[in-house]
């Protein structure tokens, strides 16, 4: 069991849990958290390198490092693991955000309990990304959800009770649909298997069942992916959550939604995905512009960012629904990009909030003069968000637009309706709206004269804050500057799947 590298993605967090539980003081807790997340980062990078090596050597299986251990044998439930390029990308993302999140919560109160829950959450996240067994996936998915309640409820701010409850209940509502969908897949795939790869390769879910199960799973994951109209947990939840939790939640957990939509809903039920895509295209297309427009008039920094996440994550689901290699590649890139950049945003907002004790843009101004480091980072994050070339957002969005346009035009020219193309153009409009709200915030918050003279005494970032933000910025810039590396990693590794998916459709 322990010769499989993937299992360490769950074991390390578990060891970290034990370590934190045994720690005596905050220094030890920090040490455990940072060491552990560094180890995870290193592991994921190693995995990436090794994986690329294997692929270069001509490995063509859909999933590598697959392994399976019997668990609930009579029901064929196994602890099956395996990764492809997407999972690896997500693992890297998660470990980086966990690392930076640890830095960002350097001085959190009640650190022990906080880190216990945080690491439990990440255990769920890592477990989710390495699992290829529907049951295990679902279990890890829920493991990742519930710590949010306490993390927000105990360490949050504002109307945290309401937000925490709303977030938890809505996400659990999603997982209710999801559970039904997953069990339905199990019974109707004709294989009595929970293994995604097996079902995808050999299973045949009858068409009418697909039409029922696809919406179930897609909505189930879509709730976490902040799909309109199930996104309302996001603004409140993010606004109330403590920094590291917002980071992990927006940065990683929301990606669980997109990942799940792809990995389960579309991967296993392509026909239904093709036929029902229009419903969800409309919803996600609305998400994209709707989130952006909503963000334009918010005054709370976290609300702005939360709505921006709705918009960006909507783009992820939107691109996935294009059922086209390019757009899907873009979707994965967008997940990576949005994960990093929104984590950066939330980290910065947390740091600013920690100093000014307000998140209302109307009560701040001219922070560039007071805390230049944080302000510059904020501008960079904003630029990434509005899709400046050289930063990650541009690459992702462009790939999505090109892919969506390709598919949309193919539909239009092929006489399959103009829905895709219309919504692609609508989605394109988001680049302008994004610019509007990002610049609005940058202008109000960072530039201009100092709004509140009390803010003049505030200090700039501390070293741990610098570490956290710098790491994220480097990652954002790395993706933005060398996109082909990341994109070909993803595309190369998952194109067999997608071609299969598309092959099944056509």
């Amino acid at each position, binding site marked *: 069991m322990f010769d499989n590298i993937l299992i360490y993605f769950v074991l390390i967090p578990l060891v970290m849990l034990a370590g934190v539980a045994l720690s005596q003081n905050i220094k030890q807790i920090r040490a455990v958290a940072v060491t552990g997340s560094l180890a995870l980062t290193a592991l994921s990078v190693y995995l990436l390198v090794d994986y690329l090596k294997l692929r270069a050597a001509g490995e063509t299986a859909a999933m590598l490092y697959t392994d399976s251990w019997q668990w*609930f044998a*009579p029901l064929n439930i196994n602890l099956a693991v395996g990764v492809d390029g997407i999972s690896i990308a997500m693992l890297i993302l998660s470990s980086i955000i966990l690392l930076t999140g640890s830095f960002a919560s350097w001085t959190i109160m009640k650190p022990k309990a906080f880190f216990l829950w945080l690491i439990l959450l990440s255990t769920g996240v890592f477990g989710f990304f390495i699992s290829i067994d529907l049951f295990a996936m679902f279990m890890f998915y829920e493991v990742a959800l519930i710590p949010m309640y*306490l993390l927000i409820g105990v360490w949050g701010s504002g109307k945290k009770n309401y937000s925490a409850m709303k977030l938890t209940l809505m996400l659990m509502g999603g997982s209710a649909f999801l*559970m*039904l969908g997953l069990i339905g897949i199990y019974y109707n795939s004709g294989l009595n298997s929970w293994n995604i790869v097996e079902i995808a390769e050999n299973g045949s879910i009858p068409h009418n069942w697909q039409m029922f199960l696809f919406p179930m799973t897609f909505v189930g994951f879509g709730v976490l992916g902040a799909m309109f109209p199930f996104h309302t947990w996001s603004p409140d939840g993010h606004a109330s959550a403590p920094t590291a939790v917002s980071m992990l939640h927006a940065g990683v957990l929301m990606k669980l939604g997109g990942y799940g939509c792809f990995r389960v809903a579309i991967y296993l039920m392509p026909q239904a995905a093709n036929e029902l895509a229009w419903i969800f295209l409309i919803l996600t297309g609305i998400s994209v512009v709707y989130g952006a427009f909503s963000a334009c008039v918010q005054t709370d920094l976290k609300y702005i960012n939360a709505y921006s996440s709705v918009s960006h994550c909507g783009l992820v689901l939107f691109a996935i629904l294009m059922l086209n290699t390019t757009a899907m590649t873009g979707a994965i890139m967008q997940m990576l990009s949005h994960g990093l950049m929104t984590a950066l945003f939330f980290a910065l907002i947390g740091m600013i909030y920690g100093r000014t004790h307000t998140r209302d843009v109307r009560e701040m101004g001219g922070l560039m003069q007071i805390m230049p480091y944080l302000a510059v980072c904020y501008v960079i994050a904003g630029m990434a968000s509005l899709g400046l070339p050289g930063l990650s957002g541009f690459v992702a969005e462009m790939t999505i637009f090109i892919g969506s346009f390709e598919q949309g035009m193919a539909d239009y020219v092929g006489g399959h309706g103009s829905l895709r193309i219309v919504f692609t153009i609508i989605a394109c409009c988001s680049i302008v709206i994004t610019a509007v709200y990002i610049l609005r915030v940058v202008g109000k918050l960072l530039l201009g004269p100092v709004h509140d003279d009390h803010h003049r005494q505030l200090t700039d970032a501390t070293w741990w804050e610098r570490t956290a933000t710098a790491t994220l910025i480097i990652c954002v810039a790395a993706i933005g500057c060398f996109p082909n590396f990341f994109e070909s990693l993803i595309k190369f590794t998952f194109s067999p799947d997608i071609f299969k998916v598309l092959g099944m459709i056509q």
Partner: protein
Amino acid sequence: MDYSQFLAMKQEISLLVVFLLVFFYDTILPKKAQNGIAGFTTLIFGLFTAQSIAYMFCPCSAQDTTAFAGMYVTGPVIMAIKNILNIGVLIVLIQSIKWANGEFMIVRRGEFYELLLVTLFGMYLMISGRHFLIFLIGLESASLPLAAMVAFDKKRYESHEAAVKYLLTAVFSSAIFMMGLSFVYGLAGSLYFTDINLMIFGENSALAVVALAFVIAGIGFKLSLVPFHLWTADVYQGAPTPVTSYLSVISKGATAFAFLVVLIQAFGMFYEEVWQWMLYALIIVTITVGNLFAIRQKNLKRFLAFSSISQAGYIMLGVIAFNATGIASLMYYVLVYIFSNLAAFGVIGAVENATGKVDMDDYNGLSNTNPRLALCMMLAMFSLAGIPPFAGFFSKFFIFAAALQQGSIAIYILVLIALINTIVSLYYYLLVVKAMYIKTEEPCQIPAFRSACSERLGLWISVAGILILGVGAVFYNYLLDLTTSMGLFGSIM
């Protein structure tokens, strides 16, 4: 007249031996030695449980045994069921030691144990009985002494009120139940399950349907299915905490099994599986109404009463599944439910014994004063709500999976409704967590205290169960192997 048939009833007889030992200990031994009765009972019940579990793995018990011309049946599945109950009773016993040793209980603790053991005996009969007379006697043995136990807390008025409500509704319910039985008898001419099953095949007369409805009502009363549940909350609230926990887990669990047996064995061949549709409606109403009531409760015991009502609805999903997986899932669900609920009641009992407080508001900030108790409570709540990696998640998942195995759209809708209800239930379970962990602004009403060893032991066992039962797949796998190997119409069928 072959009296050797009694030998088939090893578990019942051993239980009666335990009962007699306790009875004689209570009546014969001098007052001085009486202080040990709680420990003594727990100990010998523990031995009995251990023996019973050990016997389950003995190859000689691998076969189904029928006695009294089919009136009584036992076999691996049934033994497993009984052992699940035994484990639960053992935990209840351990948790109640402190309470039973209280000053107030001295004069009646012997009777407490005796009554408890008799009710367990009654449940055994319900599970093993394949004749409605035996079933009825079992049902009554499991109900009537409980009424006395509910009234044990003589200081508290609520205890009396609860006893009255319980007894009156119980008798009413058994009257309805017997009315139903009389109709069944009129149709089938026999009260043996197998006979009924044969005679009632394809029956679709009004009489049969009404009879079935009455039988379901009678058993549903003990399971507290809506709308037969109204006694539950009052009784749970009024009864002494150990009795409440006993009522909520053991009595409910046993009845669930018995219900399964009755429906499948006696009414399984009913016209177009009418019982499934009845159950379908009951499940929806039960889960929903239970949840709706639970969200407003302030008293934790009352709160858990409603929670247990909705849990009963989930348990019934295992019955409606009507397959081996369903049976295994039901057994597993009850097992997990026993541990989860007992952990919750363990905490409530400990707090009540120490401070007398049972309101949710009193628990505000418990995590600051009694972090371990708060942790136990939280785990229990998570497990009840079905949050992984705690056992409750697995039991819920499997019971849904078992139900969905049927594959009809109707069952999907049912499960969807149940799943949506889990959101509501999550809400109120989280309310408890919120009280303990989040509402910490004001100092906690409950001062830090050290709970008794027995209470801690009980909690440890429950928490261990919550943590291990799910992730450790052996338990479920064992149960599922057991039920599948015995086949759909094995001993239980």
